[in-house]
Each structure stands twice: as structure tokens, then as C-alpha cells.
């Protein structure tokens, strides 16, 4: 990797099909997804979200990730100059691979969530020998 100047990524707000009854804003985490033969790895940036405030679920082929921001830390603090807003993080993906749900691994470090979703046995590519 050659050095490059890092620019701020403008936060994208969650667009919902249904209107929420709660007016607070939620954001879409910047995400990388890559696939190996055995698993799908999803890497999401959620600064300020702690492990215990994360919800990850797979339901009928949809992966849902919810990261709640603990904004109690901001109590008694008056903003005087701001460049970004804060809020909960939310994102869903429909999975094209069959996933072994029991083997999903999640790890959070430095505000980055890494999800490893192992493919179910039948979804792995099989080598077919031409006879």
C-alpha cells in the first residue's frame, strides 16, 4: 500500500421502507465484503459501538446488523464545534450463500466489526472430475 491522504467518508443515513416512530437518525456503516472458498467475511465500521451493544442475526437469508451507540458518555457535554453526527448503526444484506448460522464468528476491535460467516457444507464448491 502506498501512502495516500485519507478523506472523511460522509455518513450515509439509513433509508427505511417504513417510517420509524422514533425520530432519531441511524447510519449505514461503511462495509467491506469478501469471499473465500469456506466463508463470507463482512467488515463494518461502527466507531463507538461496544461488543455488548451489537446485535447480529440471520433470518430467512437476511443478515441484520444493529449497533447501538452508547451516547450516555456525552452527558453534560455541550457541543461547540462539530463536523459529524452520531447515532446507531444499522445494515442488512441478503445472503446468496447458505450460511452455517451456528458457526458465525464476530469480533470487534477499534470500532470495526468483523463477521465471518462460514458457508454451509452443501454450498461449498465441489470439484468435479471429468472422466
Amino acid at each position, binding site marked *: 500500500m502506498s501512502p495516500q491522504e485519507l*478523506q472523511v*467518508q460522509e455518513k450515509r443515513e439509513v433509508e427505511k421502507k417504513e417510517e420509524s416512530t422514533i425520530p*432519531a437518525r441511524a447510519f449505514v456503516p461503511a462495509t*467491506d465484503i469478501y469471499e473465500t472458498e469456506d466463508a463470507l467475511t463482512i467488515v463494518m*465500521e461502527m*466507531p463507538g459501538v461496544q461488543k455488548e451493544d451489537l446485535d447480529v442475526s440471520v433470518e430467512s437469508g437476511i443478515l441484520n446488523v444493529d449497533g447501538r451507540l452508547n451516547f450516555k458518555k456525552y452527558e453534560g457535554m455541550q457541543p461547540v464545534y462539530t463536523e459529524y453526527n452520531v447515532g446507531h448503526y444499522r445494515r442488512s444484506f441478503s445472503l446468496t450463500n447458505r450460511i452455517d448460522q451456528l458457526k458465525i464468528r464476530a469480533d470487534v476491535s477499534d470500532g470495526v466489526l468483523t463477521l465471518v460467516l462460514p458457508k454451509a457444507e452443501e454450498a461449498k464448491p465441489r470439484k468435479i472430475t471429468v472422466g
Partner: protein
Amino acid sequence: MMRRFDPLDALFDFQRALEASLESDWLRGGTTGTGAFPPINVFQQGDNLVAVLEMPGVHKSDLEIQAKGNTIRISGKKAISYPEDVSLHRRERRWGSFDRSLTVPMQIKSDAVKAEYRDGILALFIPRAESDKSRSITIN
């Protein structure tokens, strides 16, 4: 007014407060690289200031903070690595090096600035210098 604490309302109020100070000229241009990484929010907490910077994916060891006078410089790098032999479906995260400085419009105790880095968030606790604090004046 007495009001039951509702965390959802509280978040919305807080988001609006952050929104309201987006146009603030409190820093009077005292930062280099606005729009550069990492984004900075500055809060007042009693007499002191707290600067909160979002930098997910930056390792503590890749982060350098220096304070001189009333200027604090934050520099470092954010690296992203992918394992070999993967097919990349989505690539939204950014990486690179950064160097920003923040000059606050008041006298600070630069040798007493404290930094805390956790969950991709850097918090700088900036104490106001005694000489900058206001004193109440007794009327004779």
C-alpha cells in the same frame, strides 16, 4: 420542567444539538484540513474542552498526538488488509494517512492534555489554563 428521561428522545435532542453546531465558527478557522480525516467534534465540559474524533480501524500504535501551545496535532495512518485469494464483493472502507491540527481559541494546559482511545474513538481532554478561567469580582 420535570421530564422523564427517555433515551430515544435524548438521542434525537443530542443529534439536533450536534447538527446545530455544524455551522459554528467557534474555532475561528483554528483547524487544518476541515473535511479531512478524522472528523472532529468539540464539546465544552465545565471549564474544559473535550475533542472527540472518529477513526474506526486505526490502531493505537499508529496514532500520534502532540500538544504545543493551544494547538494539538493528530497524525497517523489507517491500514486495511485483505487475505490473499479472496473475491472482493464490496469495498467501501477507506485507508491512508492523516495529519490534522486543532487550535482552540483559549489558553490551555497543554502539558495536561489527556488522550483516550477506545472502540475507534479518540477523546482528547483539554483542560483550560487557570489564567484563562474567569473569576468573580467582588463589588466593594
